[in-house]
């Protein structure tokens, strides 16, 4: 198999790689905020439960969580394994990344000085207005570097979908590598991930720059 055919075949999986990437961000970024707010709940029962869930999600491999989401229903209830593997992949990824984002959000929210809340209170802002207008915009700026880190990691983590044979770029590459007894597909995959992250880095850099108008 020529290098070009390899690249073309693997490119066919890039759409699915992108699907995992964008859908995971789409769901995990807001879900992370909900988890963060529950984690910071004054209700200690709620906050301890959420805290425990976060430690499990962060303390066990994403690969294991993916296997659990994909095949768990079959072993537990004899349910059919999803035909479209994209669904369990995105569910597992979104939940896992939400846990990480939640901790990033929490750190950001807790870093906002108390004086900001006090000024807002005296000026008559409601709690929701204070959060949406005063706290959240400042949190977004503060957490951008950590979020960029997670997004870069997510690009590479999409390869974990090969464990459930979802036909994304890396899975196809691994199949070619097996059938052709060649290492070249892995090098191709490496280049793909690097280029992907090159773009991610540029985009995130631009967003950070746009938030640079204040200290």
């Amino acid at each position, binding site marked *: 198999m020529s290098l070009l055919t390899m690249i073309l075949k693997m490119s066919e999986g890039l759409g699915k790689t992108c699907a995992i990437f964008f859908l995971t961000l789409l769901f995990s970024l807001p879900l992370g905020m909900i988890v963060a707010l529950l984690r910071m709940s004054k209700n200690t029962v709620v906050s301890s439960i959420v805290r425990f869930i976060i430690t499990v999600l962060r303390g066990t491999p994403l690969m294991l969580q993916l296997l659990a989401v994909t095949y768990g229903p079959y072993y537990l209830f004899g349910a059919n394994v999803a035909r479209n593997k994209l669904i369990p992949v995105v569910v597992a990824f979104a939940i896992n990344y939400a846990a990480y984002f939640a901790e990033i959000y929490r750190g950001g929210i807790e870093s906002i*000085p108390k*004086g*900001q809340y*006090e*000024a807002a*209170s*005296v*000026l*008559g*802002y409601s709690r929701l*207005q204070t959060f949406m*207008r*005063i706290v959240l*915009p*400042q949190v977004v*700026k503060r957490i951008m570097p950590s979020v960029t880190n997670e997004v870069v990691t997510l690009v590479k983590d999409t390869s974990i979908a090969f464990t459930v044979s979802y036909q994304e770029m890396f899975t196809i590459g691994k199949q070619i590598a097996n059938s052709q007894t060649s290492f070249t597909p892995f090098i191709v995959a490496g280049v793909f991930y690097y280029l992907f992250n090159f773009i991610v880095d540029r985009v995130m850099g631009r967003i950070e720059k746009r938030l640079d*108008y*204040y*200290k």
Partner: protein
Amino acid sequence: MSEKTEHAPSGSAPILEIRGLQKAYDRVPVLKDISFSVSKGNVVSVIGPSGSGKSTLLRCASFLETATGGDILYDGQYAVKGGVYAPKKELNRFRRLFGMVFQNFNLFPHYSVLKNICEAPLLRGADKEEIRERAVSLLKKMGLEGKENAYPCQLSGGQQQRVAIARALALEPEILYFDEPTSALDPELTGEVLKVMRQLAEDHMTMVVVTHEMSFAHAVSHRVIFMDGGYITEEGPPEQIFGNPQQERTKKFLSNYQK
């Protein structure tokens, strides 16, 4: 009423009245039994050693801290009665009566100067053009003409504090609290801020100022309150407090400021 002031206009309730106020943190009392009132147009300075409860007093009056006992009345109406707070809705109504200027300014860093000043009135339904004009004229009064589009990080501490004063004034409060407004500033910047505060006093703005600036307290206030250990241990006109203090503790404290 527990006391009278020579400046009280007869027949009208004081804008702020505090009776037997108590505040404890984890059973450690900070305010033990505070009573005083402020009439419209008066400037009251609160002085005293660190840890005497001066800031806590302002923070209770502005509902940033929850008092554990006593009464707080605005315009003769109970906001807190016997340590029990009025419903949230009513407290929000009382909140419209006062403004607060903090030691650390607490401007919103992601907003321009203009937005810092205008957003709160806009959220209360003020007219956009009207509030903008008011903001511009307030900035002019603060000596900050042309700074509308600057961000707080581009301003000196003294400028930031004057923006914070403009922000508080934009809501047209009946009474303005200052919590050590110049303690984070060097002497030169302190002067700028005290100048606008003096100007406000001349315009008959009602103010309660927690401060370590004795010459300001002496020159500008109608009444000075000396606090120590959670009590008001002495109060009176500035001439008395600074010229002829009655209590040993007051004398000792003020001797540190004699230059």
